[in-house]
């Protein structure tokens, strides 16, 4: 009798210990770090990205969290869009808040600075909107993933789209207008080289070099209008681009000459809805309206608008949302929130995102996502202009060949 009682006590003790243990395990939250520049030049984009992340987290938490049992807890910090501050804040997130993954950053310089920290502490790092190719191309880290089309993909996509437009519109000659400094010169060179390959029939009519910080574009504007090119390809630094646009508008420049090259995310399309010239040929990273045929995008737009007073999600919000869902699918494949296993599971993984079924390229963890080129124009469905006649340039047509990445990494080692 006594031994029977002892057996029951032992069984019950083991049972309660196991149940208690599993309850404790189920309650373990997933700490997700978000390090973004909420002050400084990236404020607007970062704020939008956090909103996209928040919507994804709300949706996943409504179903119990990752794997249905790990509710996500967001820890977000301001990097001030400065690399040194970004490093400090990410270390804080890792050491103090015990995050398992960090989503960062608006600035590519910050993302590059954060990468070795994530590798050192074996924490996942998802670069959701910073798009320097060097984040994944060189100094490879198995912990770093990129869900935004990188600089190479965007440049090649622009050339690809321009070539298509040139064929369609029978364009023959173009003028380049580039800021006269390192970035302007190198970008312009890359554009010309890409166009030589994609549209060899196009001829450069003139190369114009306004100085960086030019305040008076009138002579450039009238000269381009006088030379009547089929289009102008601009590589102007951001402030110069705004100045040029403002000065060219009163000439009716954009009504007469297709102007290619500026980046217009949904943020710009909304904030500059009244002043943005219609007819601009612009490039974008993840415009929601390009994928309203995908149920996941429809659902995201609906939930985002419901949460943020009817506001439409920008490209940055879309990519923030996708970053969380890519992580979710990595965790599901791994069957655990253990970072090492999730990292391995995400390598080469194909994920269902708002922008379609996309794969992380095994060689560099770059999401094989599309770039978008279209013409700024009004659409009765939206209270702001969108990119019309949209061309989606798939990763297969825009990503850097793997052999070049291997060569770049070998050169880096020497």
């Amino acid at each position, binding site marked *: 009798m006594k031994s029977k009682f002892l057996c029951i006590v032992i069984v019950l003790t083991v049972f309660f210990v196991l149940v208690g243990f599993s309850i404790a395990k189920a309650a373990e939250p997933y700490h997700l770090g978000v390090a973004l520049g909420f002050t400084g*030049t990236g404020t607007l984009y970062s704020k939008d990205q956090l909103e996209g992340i928040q919507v994804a987290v709300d949706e996943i938490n409504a179903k119990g969290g990752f794997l249905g049992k790990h509710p996500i807890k967001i820890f977000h910090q301001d990097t001030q869009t400065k690399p040194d501050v970004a490093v400090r804040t990410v270390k804080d997130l890792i050491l103090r808040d015990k995050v398992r993954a960090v989503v960062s950053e608006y600035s590519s310089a910050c993302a590059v600075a954060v990468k070795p920290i994530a590798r050192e502490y074996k924490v996942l790092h998802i670069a959701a909107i910073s798009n320097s190719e060097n984040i994944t191309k060189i100094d490879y880290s198995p912990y770093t993933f990129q869900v935004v089309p990188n600089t190479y993909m965007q440049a090649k996509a622009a050339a690809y789209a321009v070539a298509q437009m040139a064929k369609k519109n029978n364009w023959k000659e173009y003028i380049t207008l580039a800021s006269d400094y390192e970035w302007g010169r190198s970008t312009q060179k890359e554009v010309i080289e890409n166009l030589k390959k994609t549209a060899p029939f196009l001829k450069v009519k*003139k*190369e*114009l*070099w306004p*100085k960086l*910080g*030019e*305040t*008076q*574009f*009138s*002579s*450039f*504007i*009238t*000269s381009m*209008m*006088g*030379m009547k090119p089929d289009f102008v390809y601009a590589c102007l630094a951001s*402030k110069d681009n*705004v*100045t*040029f646009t*403002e*000065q060219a*508008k*009163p*000439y*009716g420049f954009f009504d007469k000459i297709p102007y290619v090259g500026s980046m217009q995310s949904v943020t710009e399309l909304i904030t500059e809805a*009244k*002043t943005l010239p219609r007819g601009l040929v612009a490039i974008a990273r993840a415009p929601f309206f390009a994928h309203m045929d995908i149920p996941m995008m429809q659902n995201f737009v609906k939930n985002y608008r419901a949460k943020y007073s009817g506001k439409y999600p920008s490209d940055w919000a879309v990519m923030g949302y996708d970053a969380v869902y890519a992580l979710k699918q990595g965790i599901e494949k791994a069957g655990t929130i253990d970072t090492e296993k999730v990292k391995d599971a995400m390598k080469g993984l194909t994920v269902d995102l708002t922008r379609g079924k996309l794969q992380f390229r095994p060689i560099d963890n770059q999401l094989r996502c599309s770039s978008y080129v279209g013409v700024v124009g009004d659409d009765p469905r939206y209270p702001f202009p969108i990119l019309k006649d949209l061309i989606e340039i798939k990763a297969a047509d825009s990503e850097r060949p793997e052999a070049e990445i291997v060569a770049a990494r070998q050169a880096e080692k020497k």
Partner: protein
Amino acid sequence: MEFTFIFSQFISGLTYGMMLFLVASGLSLIFGVMNILNFAHATLWLIGAYLCFTFWSLMQSYEVALWVSIPLAALATGAVGWISEVVLIKHIYKRELHEQLLITYAMALIFGDLIKITWGPTDRLIVRPPIIQKPIHLFGAPIDSYFIFVILIGFAVAIGLWCFLKFTKYGHIVKAAVFSREMVSALGIPIPKIYTWVFTMGIFIAGLAGGAQSAIGSVTLGMDMAIIIQAFCVVVIGGFGSLMGTLVGSLIVGEIFSFAILLWPDGAMVLIFVITAVILIVRPWGLFGTPLRA
């Protein structure tokens, strides 16, 4: 080359030249009368642009907001100039030229930081009234309608300054002070007071130019450093202290730049610097200056 194309480039050059004239005329006047090489001149021009944006922001619901904001910006910038003269410039009249340059350069940096603190790093953009959003066509050439206003302001300032110097008592005193401040002082005319008002007038014109510039494109940090070099080129070519020289120098720079873009785009700015260097070597007092102060 078609006539309309050439005419269009000419008008662009004229506009560019007029904007340079508005910046450089105050610079030239201050140097001509007070012998002060004011490196902070363009930064005060930028303050004028930011002030114009602020006034416009406060009144933007009214059609006339821009037209009222420009003179208000000129007045407010003139006030800043007056304070600067009384507090700082007054104490450096007798300093060596290189010391003046260093002090006014420090002023430019201080004003630049004050601009950043006051208006922040974000670009500021004035939305033009609808009447000047569309181009007008002259001889078939499209012209930004606002530039007609800028050209008119430029000529108005040139004529106004000329009339002031030619027909008014104070104008005569200022002209006399250019040649011999000692003689003017000996006549019992308070030179310090004249200097204060000349400096204020120069900065008022800079503020007017800044106000006019603010509706041409976005107002951004660093614009001042881009234009000050060209303003110096203008006064070197035209001659320090010469109103006519500044006007002609501005038009030369504007037109050369405008047409060089067509023929030698890489060297448009280089050409202007080459001309400036040649003038400095061959005729250091400029095309219309006098060798008296050279």
